[in-house]
């Protein structure tokens, strides 16, 4: 199997130049539209950006306070606090892949520290995860891919579930929740951090429709992803902190006790996530 992986890696490195060249027209379009923007538009945009910047910095002050408070409280409880994750900014190559597999190509690879399974976010929420890395580029699978499942929890009450992709343009589906589960249209879902691959508390989407099919054990719950899967060009790759790594190892060691612990933890974290909003 190692041979296959190596061969595939080499092959992907070989085709990377073709992908780069193919992304020129898309990039050029972007660049042209940026270049020919008129002054008034830019001015307007600048004003809007400054306004959001002000708003964000005010929120950030509050957030820093909360973070400190949270750390203190956790110290009192004797549990460890996850440091804020570091991120790496990557850009999508504007190339089209098979329209039926939900994948994108990113312009960062092994050389930049990207690794397999790394979470991919955009400014609005979780986009997916890295599935393949070569030296210069990587390929990420989006949330909407039918083979992608994401452990989530409902922000309002901490109810945990798995969100499964259903292909291009389709909403995600929340699996295996019984008819009387406490879910409502408009509930915000965040990552639960279970499974250890995605960091806790990033927005995933909102519930847009709930159906209760007759004669089926589980409800049919549709989620609209928060991330702008079609339009985002810059994405964030989350780098794990050292602390998180050791924590993950510790969690593996204590896997047997994890069940009761995890419930507690997610509940704590869901409250902190609510504070952020």
């Amino acid at each position, binding site marked *: 199997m190692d041979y296959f992986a190596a061969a595939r890696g080499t092959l992907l490195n070989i085709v990377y130049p073709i992908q780069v060249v*193919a992304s020129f027209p898309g990039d050029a379009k972007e660049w042209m539209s940026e270049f020919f923007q008129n002054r008034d538009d830019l001015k307007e945009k600048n004003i809007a950006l400054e306004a959001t910047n002000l708003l964000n910095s005010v929120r950030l002050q509050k957030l820093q306070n909360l973070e400190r408070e949270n750390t203190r409280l956790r110290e009192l409880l004797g549990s460890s606090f996850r440091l804020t994750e570091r991120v790496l900014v990557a850009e999508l190559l504007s*190339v089209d892949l*098979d329209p039926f597999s939900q994948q994108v190509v990113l312009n960062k690879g092994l050389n930049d520290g990207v690794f397999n399974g790394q979470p991919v976010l955009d400014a609005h929420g979780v986009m997916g995860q890295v599935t393949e890395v070569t030296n210069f580029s990587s390929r990420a699978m989006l949330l909407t891919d039918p083979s992608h499942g994401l452990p989530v929890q409902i922000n309002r009450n901490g109810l945990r579930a798995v969100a499964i992709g259903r292909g291009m343009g389709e909403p995600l589906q929340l699996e295996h929740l019984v008819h009387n589960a406490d879910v409502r249209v408009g509930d915000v879902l965040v990552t639960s951090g279970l499974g250890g691959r995605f960091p806790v508390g990033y927005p995933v989407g909102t519930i847009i429709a709930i159906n209760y099919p007759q004669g089926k054990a589980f409800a049919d719950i549709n989620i609209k992803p928060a991330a702008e899967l079609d339009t985002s060009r810059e994405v964030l790759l989350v780098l794990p902190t050292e602390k998180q790594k050791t924590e993950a190892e510790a969690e593996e060691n204590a896997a047997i006790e994890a069940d009761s612990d995890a419930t507690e933890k997610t509940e704590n974290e869901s409250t902190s996530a609510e504070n952020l909003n």
Partner: protein
Amino acid sequence: MATTRSSQGGSIIVLTVIVAMLLMLIPFPDNLRLARPEWVLMTVIYWALALPQRVGVGYAWVVGLIMDALMGGPLGIEAFSYGFVIYLILRFHLQIRQYPLWQQALSIMALVLVVNIPAVAMTSNFTNWSVWLPVVTTTVLWPIVYAFLRMVRQTFNVS
């Protein structure tokens, strides 16, 4: 690449295949995305028809493998189907060459269907009619691609 000393213009063949790959990758408007014709397959089919002694099953297999890597599919599907299609082309190239263009296009349609079936079966999208759109566009565009590549071949004297 099965080049013999007497043949020439191998780089032209490679160049056309690379251009076809770029055409496969360049982003289309959303409503045309699903109808993207099989540029690379058409190019390889043309060269196999025109120069069967140079572009054979092995050539097609390598191109297919690169396509797999480019499109992010499981390694080997396109490689296999490209190889298979080119085998059929080589088997029947004398007949296909004699056909009028529209009839050629129909035979190409059958071959592209052959390529698409395993790929579609893998992605379990059989019931979605739009997965078959590339077959239609490929058929419609074949005469144009054929004429263009023949012009290229004659201009650069590829043999």
